[in-house]
């Protein structure tokens, strides 16, 4: 049992056993502080495990099968190591952020439970990405859902929160059923759920089964990842969770779904049927576009972030779909490129999305609201937080010098490389995808200009925002660790690109990336130098600034009500894409008799597109009505009951007759 295994065992035992035990046994601040430190050390240990096992290619980590009824073991190949690194790298800052956050918001009792579940949540996600048997994977998978739901419920249980959690649980359970299905579908051929055996069996399976496995994997993991139209739970569950938890859910939990899909589609199946890529591509394109459009329309910061998670997942799956298409055409270079892009984007999104959610947490803890129309002017009041959030916004908008750009760039290049495919279908569709991704990127930029600009810039729109205080030290540290990560990857992408390439080479035999695409690693530092250098020069040109009142068209003074609100800001885009939102607008003007000098104008606009109504209700109602019909069979009349028995008997006897 080498050091790596030791570290991993330490990690598991700490997160799974010690921390919850400590928190349950003893109440009081010291115990809690001990627990938090333990979680942090565990996170660091996890990171070390990931890096070292990535470098030295250790595979088997830990085998608990002696204890459990079914094989339950952990192994880390490069894919798992990459995602393990992702989990730990995000978990540590979030934990640091969370400790002051929970102290601010929760009662003693709540804190104990929250931290216990918090560590269990981390554990479950680590289990998922490092499991090497189906049993372990599924166990971790279910646990992940449960614990996160518990974390949401600790916050409180209003009816709509309850309903949202219910929707979350139900959809996750159905998704888990699909995931379980695509594990079990291997069984007749692999005779075991050990990943090695499954991998071996993957190639030998008949096409039909392969297709079934692919589809159920796509549905199962898609539901977890929040692909439209399976995204229903996401904008419901993420906003109502406490911010650190939503950071974990959005930052890491969605990535476990990506991990699962990559594991199945690439590792086990080695690329799905020929149409698989196109299916994924189309769904992903819709997800990305609609996701970001809904995000722009939101004025609740956390809902906005949730929808933008949907969008980013869409981008990741764009990459995966492209890679699948390349695989189907045996063009391994393109496949590698797209896959690297997708994985990198997953990694980046983990960083900036958790950063942004933490930022929302910081805002809500100092202003007690995340409604953009109530905020404003926070940059002057909480500059450190603001700067970190700004970094997050730039990254998520996919701007160069920040990490979001690198991955989107790789995906762009993979689309471009698609033109080299002989197949006309792919050769046209992939380059056209550039347009889609460009639109997504542009809208994302617009969306986060709005988010940051309305929340942090200008003048405060409410008293809370007026008196906002800078977030406590722990929160700032957590935020800035993530922010530093974003910039670091953004300016020196080489740090991750090379390892990712080696990962992909292991994952898809013979794959690689075109050399010239690695040039991004060299060019970006140059660009950074030029941009910042010129900016510095330009800054030198300027004297110090003098304060002067903003020009108010000659009016006595400027009130905050003259500013653009988030709703107004997104108005042009909303009216351009009106057919997406199908808005239901109401304008009430008083008094009605004089249209030009209204005393008051009330305006409201509601999005009426509802997936729930169109896609989900019918299913549910089908089941319910079926149940009601069955219920009628249970008439309280005993004679009817006896009749049932006799009918059963008679039908069996006839069955016997014909069976002979």
């Amino acid at each position, binding site marked *: 049992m080498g050091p790596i295994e030791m570290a991993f065992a330490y990690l598991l035992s700490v997160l799974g056993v010690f921390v919850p035990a400590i928190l349950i046994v003893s109440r009081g601040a010291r115990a809690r502080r001990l627990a938090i430190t333990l979680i942090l050390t565990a996170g660091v240990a996890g990171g070390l495990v990931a890096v070292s096992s990535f470098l030295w290619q250790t595979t088997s980590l830990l085998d608990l099968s002696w204890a459990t*009824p079914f094989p339950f073991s952990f192994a880390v190949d490069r894919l798992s190591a990459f995602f393990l690194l992702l989990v730990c790298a995000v978990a540590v800052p979030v934990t640091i952020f969370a400790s002051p956050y929970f102290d601010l918001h929760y009662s003693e009792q709540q804190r104990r439970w929250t931290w216990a579940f918090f560590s269990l949540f981390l554990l479950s996600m680590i289990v998922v990405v490092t499991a090497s048997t189906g049993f372990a994977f599924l166990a971790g998978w279910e*646990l992940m859902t449960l614990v996160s739901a518990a974390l949401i*419920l600790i916050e409180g249980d209003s009816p709509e929160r309850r309903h949202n959690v219910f929707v979350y649980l139900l959809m996750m359970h159905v998704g888990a059923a699909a995931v379980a299905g695509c594990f079990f579908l291997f069984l007749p051929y692999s005779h075991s759920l050990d990943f090695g055996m499954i991998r071996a069996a993957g190639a030998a399976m008949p096409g039909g089964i392969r297709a079934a496995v692919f589809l159920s994997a796509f549905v199962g993991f898609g539901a977890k990842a929040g692909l439209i139209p399976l995204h229903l739970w996401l904008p419901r569950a993420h906003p109502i969770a406490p911010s650190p938890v939503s950071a974990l859910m959005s930052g890491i939990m969605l990535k476990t779904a990506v991990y699962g899909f990559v594991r199945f589609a690439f590792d086990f199946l080695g690329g799905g049927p020929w149409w698989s890529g196109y299916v994924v591509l189309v769904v992903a394109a819709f997800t990305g576009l609609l996701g970001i459009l809904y995000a722009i329309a939101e004025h609740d910061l956390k809902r906005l972030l949730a929808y933008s998670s949907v969008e980013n997942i869409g981008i990741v799956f764009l990459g995966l779909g492209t890679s699948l298409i390349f695989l189907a055409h045996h063009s391994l270079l393109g496949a590698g490129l797209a896959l690297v892009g997708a994985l990198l984007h997953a990694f980046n999104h983990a960083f900036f999305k958790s950063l942004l959610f933490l930022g929302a947490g910081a805002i809500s803890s100092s202003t007690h609201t995340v409604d953009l129309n109530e905020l404003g002017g926070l940059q002057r009041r909480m500059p450190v937080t603001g700067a970190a959030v700004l970094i997050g916004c730039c990254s998520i908008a996919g701007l160069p010098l920040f990490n979001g750009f690198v991955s989107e760039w790789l995906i762009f290049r993979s689309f471009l490389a698609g033109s080299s495919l002989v197949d006309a279908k792919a050769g046209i569709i992939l380059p056209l995808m550039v347009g889609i991704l460009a639109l997504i990127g542009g809208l994302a930029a617009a969306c986060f200009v709005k988010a940051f600009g309305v929340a942090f810039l200008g003048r405060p729109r409410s008293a809370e925002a007026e008196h906002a205080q800078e977030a406590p030290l722990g929160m700032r540290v957590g935020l800035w660790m993530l922010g530093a990560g974003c910039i670091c990857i953004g300016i020196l992408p080489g740090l991750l690109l090379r390892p990712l390439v080696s990962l992909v080479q292991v994952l898809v035999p013979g794959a690689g990336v075109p050399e010239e695409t690695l040039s991004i690693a060299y060019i970006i530092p140059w660009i950074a130098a030029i941009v910042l250098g010129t900016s510095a020069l330009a800054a030198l040109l300027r004297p110090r600034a003098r304060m002067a009142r903003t020009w108010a068209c000659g009016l006595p003074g400027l009130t905050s009500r003259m500013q653009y609100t988030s709703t107004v800001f997104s108005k042009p885009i909303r009216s351009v894409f009106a057919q997406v939102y199908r808005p239901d607008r109401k304008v009430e003007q008083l008094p009605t008799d004089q249209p030009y000098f209204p005393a008051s104008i009330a305006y409201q606009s509601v999005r009426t597109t509802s997936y729930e109504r169109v896609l989900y209700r019918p299913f549910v109602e089908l089941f319910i009505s079926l149940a009601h019909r069955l219920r009628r069979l249970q008439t309280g009349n005993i004679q009817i009951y006896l009749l049932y028995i006799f009918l059963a008997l008679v039908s069996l006897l006839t069955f016997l007759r014909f069976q002979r």
Partner: protein
Amino acid sequence: MIPVLGAGFILLFRNPRFATRAALLVGALEVLALGAVIWQVHLQGELQEGRYLRADALSAFFLMSIAFVSGIVLIYSSGYLRHTGEGRFSSPRWFYALVFMFLFTMISVCLSANLGLLWIMMEGTTLASALLVGFYNTEGAIEAGWKYLIVCTVGIAFALFGTIVLYLAAVKAGMSPASGLDWISLMNAAPGMALDPHLVKLAFVFVIVGYGTKIGFVPMHSWLPDAHAEAPTPISALLSAVLLNCAMYALMRYDVIVSRTVGPAFSHTLLLIFGVLSMVVAGLLILVQRNLKRLLAYSSIEHMGIIAIGLGLGGPLGLLGALLHTFNHSAAKSLLFFGAGNVRHNMGTLRIDGIQGISRTMPQTSAALVVGGLAIVGLPPFSLFISEFAILSEAFAQAHYLVAALFLIVLSVVFGGFAYHLFRMLCGKPGRRPENARLIPSEYISMGIAALCVLYFGVRIPHFFNVLLHEAMAVLR
């Protein structure tokens, strides 16, 4: 034999408190005796007492779950009966007396070496428990009791006919009338001797309808929700956690014989049909229940369906899953019923829409309900996840894709139902204050044991248990 004596012994006490103590004493003795039997079986394979009593691994396995459940049920009811008055046939002492009669019949179901005796004892379980179901003497209780009595007796009558037909087959095949009903001799003889396959099939049809009524297979399940809902909580726990298992045990015996005679295809198909039918119907009915205990009753039907599917699939994992599931289901279900019992005491009702926000008012009970609920819908890290996992993998491994798909779908539906109902009961603003929110020790102990067991078996299966399990499977092969 302890229970019978115990029953008489208890009837001597008029004072309920003494009766309770005596009952606990007797219960302890009984559990010890069962433990001894199991241990013997574990040591020396099979026990044979005279011509009519024998115990092999399979019976030992079921005895174990009887011992476990009856133990915690007795502990629980010692506290539960604190507010039942005196009445004809309905006083604590009668309660315990009947309970022990009930236990006696069930134990001897598992111990009987003779199919006839088996039948007699099965009928005995009905008779012993009918009064218990009607224990409260309310309209509902009496109605439920009557239905239970009639429906089950009719069903059992068919089982008797099946037994006779099997016996006929044996006799015609030239076995001595004396041994013509010993399942052991039938089992051993079955492959070699030419039992008329057609008669055997006929027998199995009657038996599966008959004992299926006791198990609660759809469409013979009609008595089950009534009985479970109206009986006193400990009895509901006993019914769904032990009685159903015993009936299942009886069915297993026949299943072995039949599949050894005419090949597994026939009996397994029937089991699969009934299993899937029960699972689907019960799973859907769970969605629309309004009474907590009826909800639990239907989920028992669903789980019996799961077990039947496991049996019907056969194969190492299927059998493992089925046997394991009997035990796990008993533990989880008794836990849930205890929780429901507390809810009834405190809120005075079992109507789900009448219960709200108990997570605030009685945290411990609702914790028990949550643990039980998570376990019963088959989520890790609880034991039912293991057994369902086993059965599912068997289903897929044998490429029974339809069964597997239905299985998965129903699991999701059931999850939805339970989550929905539990949320409604746990969350929300509490209605009326409960009288005594905190658990009294007896409840604490019994629920604690059940919960721990559910959790522990979810993580690992103890060695001794595992050995017994595999011996039992060996019997079923």
